[in-house]
């Protein structure tokens, strides 16, 4: 990890920034792919260079501020600035030198950031094997794996699985307002503009779970519009894909089937899809494999029974303003619905 290579003695605050950022699974300075690698290199170059410039400027400034005036000026008591043509030329040279160095540094940074931008947003080099359609909604992510065969299309939400070491193309669109797709460990940001599909690609060098976040303010619950990218081995990815292709289980216990009946007769059916049942709503996330996901409500809560019941009874408590209304269910009904949702592996 780059974090370990830092000279901790250099500046304490550099170290502090670095440890706090790298400790989470969402960090631009802990790159897990070639594009994030470029971004993070550029970031470190800028940080070290500009820290050097800052220290230099501050030292010069303090020298200027604390240096006394010449003896003559002080004893004469008059506030005259003495000029000395020899010193003036020397000073002019220093200023000129400063201007030149500043220009050169800024230009070098401009060129390197331009090159990095070109490299990471270039068209993909390898032939595309995996294309994922992402649609941003207020305030969750619809995820669809493209396939020519309709029965091989996987639809899920807020959790994206990709195989390690493979280039993956993302087609980005929005259903309402502008959002932005950002997985700091893997890539920079790409905006999702309604009616104007954008395309980007990324590649992960090592397995792990990386958190992504909407990076364009999009309303009340913008901060709770996260997702997870699960980078796994080719075999694990294939196994996951196979399991996501299956419809919801048809063999249900009696409480699970009561839960399904409730789901179909309550408002849930208007908004959610569960493949293999009559529920085909498109307003909210696809729930066919809800139980296989780590989080619910776009990373707002861990996926467990307590949080699910909290969410269903009053999601407005968890994410005020989100587009799922509070659904009145008595405790018996709630238990049936939860039993059913937990069967959606």
């Amino acid at each position, binding site marked *: 990890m780059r974090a370990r290579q830092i000279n901790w003695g250099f500046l304490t605050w550099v170290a502090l920034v670095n440890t706090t950022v790298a400790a989470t699974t969402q960090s631009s300075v802990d790159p897990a792919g070639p594009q994030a690698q470029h971004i993070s290199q550029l970031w470190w170059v800028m940080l070290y260079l500009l820290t050097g410039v800052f220290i230099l400027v501050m030292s010069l400034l303090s020298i200027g501020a604390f240096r006394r005036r010449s003896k003559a000026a002080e004893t004469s008591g008059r506030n005259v600035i003495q000029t000395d043509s020899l010193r003036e030329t020397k000073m002019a040279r220093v200023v000129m030198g400063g201007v030149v160095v500043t220009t050169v540094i800024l230009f070098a940074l401009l060129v390197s950031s331009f090159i990095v931008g070109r490299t990471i947003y270039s068209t993909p080099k390898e032939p595309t094997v995996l294309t994922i359609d992402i649609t941003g909604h207020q305030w969750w992510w619809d995820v669809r794996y493209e396939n020519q065969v309709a029965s091989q299309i996987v639809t899920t939400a807020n959790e994206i699985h990709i195989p390690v070491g493979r280039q993956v193309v993302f087609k980005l669109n929005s259903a309402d307002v502008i959002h932005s797709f950002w997985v700091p460990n893997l890539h920079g940001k790409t905006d999702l503009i309604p009616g104007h599909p954008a395309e980007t690609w990324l590649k992960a060098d090592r397995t792990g779970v990386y958190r992504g976040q909407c990076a364009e303010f999009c309303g009340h619950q913008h901060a709770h519009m996260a997702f997870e990218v699960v980078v796994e081995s080719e075999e694990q990815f294939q196994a996951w894909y196979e399991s996501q292709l299956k419809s919801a289980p048809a063999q249900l216990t009696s409480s699970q089937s009561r839960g399904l009946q409730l789901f179909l007769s309550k*408002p849930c059916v*208007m908004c959610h899809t569960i493949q293999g049942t009559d529920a085909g709503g*498109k307003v909210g996330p696809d729930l066919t494999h809800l139980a296989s996901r780590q989080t619910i409500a776009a990373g707002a809560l861990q996926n467990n029974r307590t949080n699910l019941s909290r969410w269903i009874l009053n999601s407005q408590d968890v994410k005020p303003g989100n587009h799922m209304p509070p*659904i009145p269910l008595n405790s018996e009904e709630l238990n049936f619905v939860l039993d059913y949702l937990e069967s959606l592996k």
Partner: protein
Amino acid sequence: MALLPVALTVTSCKREERNFNTPPPNVSEAQTNPSFKNPLEENAYSLSEGKRLFSQYNCNGCHAQGGGGMGPALMDEKWIYGARPEQVFATIVEGRPNGMPSFRGRVQETQVWQLSAYVRSLSGHVPKDAASSRDDHMQGKPPESRTKEQPIKNTSPP
């Protein structure tokens, strides 16, 4: 004159409020009180939620953007099952003969009130400052905020 800003603030507050968790108007009170007013009709957020749900629940599948198709037009002056907020509410919940399905239990109550408010805004029966002034899709008619209040004509089913 000094009261004008105060009055403006009070009225505009109602228009601007975003209550995510207020209980819906009471249905039985709405149906028994002849001067009942749906408070959501004065609120811009509720009207725009109604507008969003109108297409998300596919009401526009049959009623288009108010112009009608398989179902009757909603932007004209003709009302078959009543124009009052609680009557529109009942039409959505109970369904009507000749194709209007019942959404009883399927649509959460606050949302039915939001839809009822939006439906009435299509023929100009809500305050203009709260009604929606733009569409998310191509605009096919003047927005609800510029819709003149249509007279109400009660007609019998076709």
